[in-house]
């Protein structure tokens, strides 16, 4: 592929190449009331790796999706090698030499590696040519793989290798990696970055590394752009950056000197010496009981892909406290919620409620032991959309509406009316199908059901996601009230503000482990930001 090298000064932080490979100017995108990208300028230079850093929802992915034609910008221009282009679909992007390695695999388990690599091609299949091409790429980039292996039999790291080969096979001049290490072990990540360096240095490609991990952005990139709430808040050379500055820019808080020092202190934390740093009373509601109501002991769990989701995770909770679980999504929070919903079986370790071990993965066991759950995705395990509001309110426990195995419609309706009033659920009545109810009210149905069961422990995973301001306030208030009445609340959230507002104690998860624990008083955005980015490890 040849690209004209018109001499003109490039913009952005890098000037190593006269015309940037990609120049995004004034890009804006809204989804309804949400501004995903707001007047974003970004230049990508050839021969350099550009880190795009930001929290979940900062607009990184949307920006990249516009570059590969999955999302159309509302405003702004995209110039490739100095020429303004309109990228309205992925085919155009591909023709322009832009390729993306997606965060979520788009592979077919039942097919062989070479078959997956050819997916999306038109015309006749040429197995041998494809195998040879895979061999070439493998050699060139050190991405060794057997083209005849079934993808379903590969580890997550190898699968990602397939994704990368799939992308490189088309010889893109601009490559986007979207959170490539979220499923990789540290060694695999290391390998990946090595081959990345190679791609860039030897072939003068432009590479974007989308990430929320401070460490890897610092080590693997040349330039860094930090996004927050749809805006570019900082751009700098990696050599000029350090973890605390990046953390601050990423979470967007002024940080005092004191907390900065605290942050450095936290640096030495890892879960082996957690016990020494154990809580801290100040404004914490101190447990009245000696025995923890929930005790998770060295839990290890794997997700569906066989990736370790919880890695020797241990946690104790007492009645009446709100424990916030901070962390970038995809670091084991979902597995934690699933284990406490009886949806995931532990590979080792135990979960005990009030001192009694509860079998994991046994249907209904956790609910019966007194663990209520507001799941991360209420449509996944929280509601049955095809059933009515009334039925959804007794999904977990039918006993309050049943006598001798028969559902008593009168009692069911009475209970439903009571809940509708108590929790202000706006719906078309008890018999309205669940899918006809709005998202915020669906969430209230979940909340009403779980609280009405008087749980000992309430797991609230991303409880305010997608809710409007009023609904968020309502949810927060409910969680606080629950804690005040003696429920142990485990608040899993990727919204730091929510965690800092509600929690008495905060733990930070990274790669399935607890990498930090502190009381509310000790916590601040920067410390949390650093820990979440895995900088402490």
């Amino acid at each position, binding site marked *: 592929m040849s690209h004209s090298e018109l001499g003109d000064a490039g913009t952005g932080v890098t000037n190593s190449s006269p015309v940037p490979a990609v120049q995004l100017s004034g890009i804006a995108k809204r989804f309804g009331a949400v501004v995903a990208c707001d007047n974003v300028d970004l230049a990508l230079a050839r021969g350099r790796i550009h880190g795009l850093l930001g929290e979940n929802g900062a607009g990184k992915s949307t920006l990249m999706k516009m570059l590969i034609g999955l999302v159309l910008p509302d405003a702004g221009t995209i110039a490739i090698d100095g020429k303004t282009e309109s990228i309205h679909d992925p085919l155009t992007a591909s023709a322009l030499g832009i390729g993306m390695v997606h965060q979520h695999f788009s592979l077919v388990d039942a097919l062989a590696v070479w078959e997956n690599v050819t997916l999306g091609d038109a015309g006749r299949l040429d197995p041998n040519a494809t195998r040879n091409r895979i061999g070439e790429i493998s050699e060139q980039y050190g991405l060794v793989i057997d083209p005849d292996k079934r993808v379903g039999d590969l580890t997550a790291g190898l699968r990602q290798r397939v994704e990368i080969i799939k992308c490189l096979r088309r010889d893109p001049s601009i490559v986007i990696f979207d959170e490539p290490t979220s499923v990789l072990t540290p060694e695999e990540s290391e390998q990946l970055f090595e081959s990345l360096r190679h791609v860039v240095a030897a072939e003068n490609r432009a590479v974007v590394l989308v990430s929320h991990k401070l460490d890897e952005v610092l080590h693997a990139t040349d330039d860094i752009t930090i996004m927050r709430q749809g805006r570019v808040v900082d751009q700098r050379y990696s050599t000029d950056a350090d973890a605390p500055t990046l953390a601050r820019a990423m979470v967007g808080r002024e940080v005092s000197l004191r907390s900065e020092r605290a942050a450095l202190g936290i640096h030495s934390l890892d879960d082996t010496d957690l016990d020494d740093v154990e809580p801290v009373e100040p404004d914490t509601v101190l447990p009245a009981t000696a025995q923890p109501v929930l005790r998770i002991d060295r839990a290890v769990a794997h997700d569906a892909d066989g990736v370790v989701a919880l890695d020797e995770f241990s946690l104790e909770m007492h009645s009446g406290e709100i424990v916030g679980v901070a962390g970038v999504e995809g670091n084991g929070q979902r597995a934690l919620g699933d284990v406490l919903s009886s949806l995931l079986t532990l590979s080792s370790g135990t979960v005990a409620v009030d001192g009694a071990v509860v079998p994991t993965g046994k*249907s*209904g066991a956790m609910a019966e032991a007194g663990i209520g*759950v507001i799941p991360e995705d209420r449509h996944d395990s929280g509601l*049955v959309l095809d059933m009515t509001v009334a*039925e959804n309110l007794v999904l977990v426990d039918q006993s309050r509406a049943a006598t001798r195995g028969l559902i008593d419609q009168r009692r069911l309706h009475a209970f439903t009316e009571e809940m509708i009033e108590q929790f202000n659920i706006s719906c078309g009545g008890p018999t309205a199908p669940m899918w006809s109810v*709005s998202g915020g009210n*669906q969430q209230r149905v979940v909340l009403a059901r779980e609280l009405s069961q008087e749980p000992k422990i309430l797991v609230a995973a991303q409880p305010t996601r997608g809710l409007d301001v009023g609904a968020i306030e309502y949810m927060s208030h409910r969680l606080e009230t629950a804690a005040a009445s003696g429920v142990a609340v485990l608040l899993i959230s990727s919204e730091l503000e929510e965690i800092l507002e509600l929690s008495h104690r905060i733990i930070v998860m990274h790669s399935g482990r607890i990498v930090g624990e502190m009381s509310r008083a000790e916590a601040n955005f920067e410390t949390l930001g650093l820990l979440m980015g895995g900088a402490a490890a």
Partner: protein
Amino acid sequence: MTDATTAVDAVGSPDAQPGRTRRGARLSEWSALYAMSIFAALVLSAILVEATGGDWRPVVSALLDGSVRRPGRWGETLATAAPLLVVALGTVISSKAGLVNIGQEGQLYVGAAVGAYFGFLIGGPGPINVVLILIIGAAGGGLWAGVAAGLRYWRGVPEVLSTLLLVTVGGQAVAYSLRWEWLLLAPEGRRGNRNQVSEQLATDNRLPRPDFFGNEFPLTVFISVVLAVIVAFALSRTVWGFRLRMLGRNPRAAQRSGVSETRYGAMALMLGGAFAGLAGAAMLTGGGFAFGNYQMVPGFSANIGWTGLLVALVAYEKPLAAIPVAVVFAGLRTGSSFVGSTGVEGRITDVISGLLVLALLIPAAVMLLRDRRRARAAATERV
């Protein structure tokens, strides 16, 4: 506004909520769809008959003669509808739990054979033995489906495949047992000139066949209607039915709520098989024109399993709606047996009844797809 409708009825009809107007609109939508597709099927059939050199008018007349008009025929139609309904009820139970059981034909055949075997073996006093045969037939069909359930919950084999393939296995197993006297084959001298036939049930081992205005049909007709009411009630009003529906609609929510997929799923699949087996035993003990001579013969199941599955589909998984649908399908069957006398070729009548079955299925399929799309749209819109 909504207290007249029950909470549970809304499951199959997601539009139940906003009261009468929507419901009325939906009803007319349904009627229009049925009218259109049946009309289209009739026109196509008429064209087909004319094109092959026949006349469509006598064909329609023969259909009516065979299903209701001639003396004794509506009794025959009801007698055929009963096992169809029983099979359909079992299918409804399985599919409410989210399972696709398509092996009713085999479950019915095996159930009937097992019932017959033990019926002859025990040979107790008449009425007691009839009840025993029915119960054992149901158990046989249930266990046959239990093979599929075991494969699914222990080894992860999809029940769609296993139930279907077990139809063939069951057919061969029964055929085998009809070759050996120690199994089902009638002793020499009592099987006439046929060599794969069981003994006939003794006269007191048969279900009574009351006579109404010259139409006689076995007691199974009443039994099947009672069963339909029981199933409808169990699914909509009991905790068991509630949990079964939960499993079918959202297995993960069910898992969290203590509905074990293995236990409830296996139970639903085996119940589906048990109903098919019961239908088989009822055909055996009920006899009549439709189902031969109170004895096992090769091909005894006579497509009742397959047709029962269709009845469940057309009835949109509603037990009570399955009653009229079963009667319609039975009428098609009894009616088309008369069409041959019009001189139209047998294959053409097969195509015609196929077209009519399709016509009955299409509205349900259209509505199902549309409801799904609506539900999905609503779900994504309102996250």
